[in-house]
């Protein structure tokens, strides 16, 4: 078989393979959103196969969120760790899937890491909640007002003491001596006031049981921020759910984190924040709750979880119970009628409703604050997917806005175009007709490269585009090696036919060597790299490999046609 025939066969074959490789990408990309949704619903397997065989755009090009989470498995026994990580992965997948994200990538990496890629996602906060939320739902009883009051008193005095000790150089240094002297007296006075509040029947939510005109505000750095100190049951018993303006949130968080403060919070009691802020009387507020630490009921036993709206339009999540769980819940509720119990999700309080009666098979979680229908839906999703077996933490996050992505696509497109033009112009001028042939081969090269990437379902990233452009420069090398060799042979006095043959023959080893070295580097980058680096490695590897084929077969085919010429334009 002649060299020419082989060239034609290889070229035709490559074109056919490329067209087949492009087919799925073309089908997928020509679909609009509604057509995609229809396909996802009617034939999910077909859709998956389309996606697997299509060119993906990396998050840096289409926008989206990439996170890496670490499962905190160090406290688990060795043999349970791998299983826990896999379960975390599956739970995250179940949480993300109902969102209808196109092609999320969720995979484990190393021992304890999970990569979650959400193309096209914009809402960072929700993504973090869906991915990183443990979704541990617990029911805890609210602490009594007395216990809470004692703790609040102690917090007030230690914070004041700490501030006086360390912060005296900063502000109001003149007031220090005076205030520390009055601290003890004030303490006593406060206690009396509080007790009367507690015993008295007027602990309405509009009354601040900690409001105390006799003590200066500086003496109560903690309780002076309270808007209301309690909520009141039907029997007029106050319970410690404390409302505070959002403007004080940072300060309260700081106070509660202080080691001195943590010491005075009695064992068995926890202080937790509300999940969301709320608006009350035109003021943004949040709540803190004093709860008994003991978990009375777990969220795992809930069934038929459904987001809904209650009569007042508030967001709720309904659930049902059966069997032993139902009995347990029934006894818990019947023993605590008129007491509030807090519904705690991942250590934040959704709400703390009063138990009005025995609940056995049907219950409702009221989402407090400014909860939206979406929040309720999210709670339904995470409760259905189940709690993560271990806590996770987000250790890496990449977020690319859609504008930046399309900007990058434009830049990548522009630079590819300019790169192609410059190279073709350069070799066209330098090698004349032969250069133009090499330029055509370069276009084939680009076409095959993109087709192979599409067929392999490779991801195109910005560094990947850089790899393509770099490949354009390097791909010419094979032709340059051949052309230079042919020129040498021509200069040595050979005729066109034997110059072409000798040129190809002698350049062969150099071409293989030069391409293989670059491919080794690209392979190493792929093996050890991740994300963007891999995108670069794939395009470089494929690009250089393909250029070997195009130079050897396609340009040779053109040269074979020119073998009978008297002179060669090179």
């Amino acid at each position, binding site marked *: 078989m002649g060299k020419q025939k082989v060239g034609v066969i290889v070229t035709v074959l490559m074109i056919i393979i490329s067209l087949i490789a492009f087919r799925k990408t073309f089908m997928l990309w020509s679909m609009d959103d509604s057509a995609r949704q229809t396909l996802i619903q009617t034939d999910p397997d077909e859709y998956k196969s389309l996606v697997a065989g299509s060119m993906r755009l990396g998050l*840096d090009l289409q926008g989206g969120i990439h996170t*890496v989470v*670490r499962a905190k498995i160090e406290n688990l026994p060795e043999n349970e760790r791998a299983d826990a990580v896999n379960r975390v992965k599956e739970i995250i997948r179940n949480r993300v899937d109902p969102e209808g994200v196109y092609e999320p990538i969720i995979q484990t990496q190393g021992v304890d890491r999970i990569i979650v890629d959400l193309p096209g996602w914009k809402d960072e906060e929700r993504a973090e909640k869906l991915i990183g939320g443990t979704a541990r739902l617990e029911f805890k009883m609210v602490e009594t007002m007395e216990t809470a009051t004692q703790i609040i008193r102690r917090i007030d005095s230690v914070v004041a003491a700490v501030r006086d000790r360390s912060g005296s150089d900063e502000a109001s240094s003149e007031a220090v001596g005076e205030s520390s002297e009055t601290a003890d007296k004030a303490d006593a006075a406060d206690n009396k006031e509080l007790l009367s509040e507690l015993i008295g029947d007027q602990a309405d939510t509009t009354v601040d049981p900690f409001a105390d005109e006799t003590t200066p505000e500086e003496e109560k750095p903690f309780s002076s921020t309270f808007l209301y100190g309690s909520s009141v049951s039907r029997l007029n018993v106050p319970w410690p759910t404390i409302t505070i303006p959002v403007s004080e949130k940072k300060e309260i968080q700081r106070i509660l984190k202080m080691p001195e403060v943590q010491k005075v919070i009695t064992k068995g009691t926890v202080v937790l924040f509300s999940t969301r802020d709320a608006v009350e009387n035109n003021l943004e507020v949040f709540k803190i709750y004093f709860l008994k630490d003991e978990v009375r009921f777990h969220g795992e036993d809930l069934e038929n979880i459904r987001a809904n709206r209650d009569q007042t339009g508030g967001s709720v999540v309904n659930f049902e119970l059966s069997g032993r769980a139902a009995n347990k819940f029934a006894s818990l509720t019947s023993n605590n009628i008129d007491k509030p119990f807090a519904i705690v999700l991942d250590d934040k309080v959704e709400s703390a409703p009063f138990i009005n009666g025995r609940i056995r098979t049907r219950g409702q979680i009221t989402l407090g604050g400014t909860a939206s229908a979406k929040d309720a839906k999210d709670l339904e999703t995470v409760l259905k997917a189940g709690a993560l077996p271990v806590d996770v*933490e*987000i*250790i*890496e*996050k*990449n*977020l*690319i*806005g859609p504008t*930046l992505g399309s900007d*990058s696509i434009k*830049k*990548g497109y522009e*630079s590819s175009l*300019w*790169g192609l033009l*410059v*190279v073709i112009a*350069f070799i066209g*001028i*330098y*090698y004349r007709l032969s250069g133009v042939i090499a330029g055509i081969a370069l276009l084939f090269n680009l076409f095959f490269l993109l087709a192979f990437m599409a067929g392999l379902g490779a991801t195109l990233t*910005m*560094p990947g*585009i*850089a790899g393509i*452009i*770099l490949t354009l*420069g*390097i791909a*010419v*090398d094979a032709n*340059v*090696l051949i052309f*230079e060799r042919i*020129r*040498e042979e021509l200069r040595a006095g050979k005729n066109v036919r034997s110059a072409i043959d000798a040129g190809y023959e*002698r350049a062969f*080893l*150099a071409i293989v*060597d*030069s*391409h*293989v*070295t*670059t491919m*080794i*580097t690209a*392979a*190493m*980058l792929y093996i*050890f*790299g*991740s994300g*963007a680096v891999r995108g*670069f490695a794939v395009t470089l590897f494929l690009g250089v490999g393909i250029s070997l084929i195009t130079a050897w077969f396609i340009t040779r085919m053109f040269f074979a046609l020119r073998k009978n010429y008297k002179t060669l334009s*090179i």
Partner: protein
Amino acid sequence: MFRIIGKTDIDFIGSRKITFAISSVFIALGIYAFVMVGLNKANMGIDFTGGTMIQGTFEKDVTIDRLRSVVEGAGFGGATIQQLQSRDTRNTFLIRIKQTEKVDGVIASKRLQSAIVEGFSDNTFRKDSEHTIGPSVGETLRKDAFWAIIASVLGILFYIAIRFDFRGGVAATIATFHDVLAVLGVFYILDIEITLLIVTALLTIAGYSLTDTVVIYDRIRENLKKFRKKAEFVPAIDLSINETLSRTLITSLTTLSVVTVLFFFGGEVLHDFSLALILGVIIGTYSSVFVASPVIAIWESRFPKRFK
């Protein structure tokens, strides 16, 4: 026939005293930079140190000084702030914060964003992108980069050793290291951040530089068959470099032209990356001619044993 250079007869090996001096400076600088990287004193990107990088655009005009004072006020004295020039707005900024012992990347990201929201309450800040690397991730990436470098070098050495001989492998590896170190050294002097992408560029340079070297070696081997006597080794090498010179230059020029295009059109992400490639192509071309081949020549003249 249009030619950049005609038939040349340059005494490349003879000029080695000058070029070796230049190369020694490059290598010394590169080793210094490498040690600094090892000691964590170089300008390492957040990929390796951990930290956060946020790019965003303000709705209304903001001066870089005002932004800096807000960022510093939040406790990030070491932050790098860059005002990005673009067609649409002057108010796009890139803020980079490296992780410290107390504040990891994830926390820094949260704290920085709330500081900006608070500090510019009369303005809105739209986050265009965020890249946050928590503790332990940086370490993993550092390790991976290290192994990628080692594996590439070993792979290349192995390939050259079986294709040519051990000497060829060593000489080519020296030239390759020379290029990578030179670019690293220049980057160190220019105080450019060493990111994952820069390491990728350095490895690409290694592959590219080797390509150049290998083509010349191929020619040396071919020409050695013509020069039978041992004394003619150096002329054979010189002839080989001269014969392949136009190929070396043309390929370097095409590659150089595409990476230059990338430098100007590729945008912020690829800016330093393409700069590394530009330097790498230039230095790589220089080294295959002036480093790899002379090393073989010297080795051969001291310890004669035919290069294969």
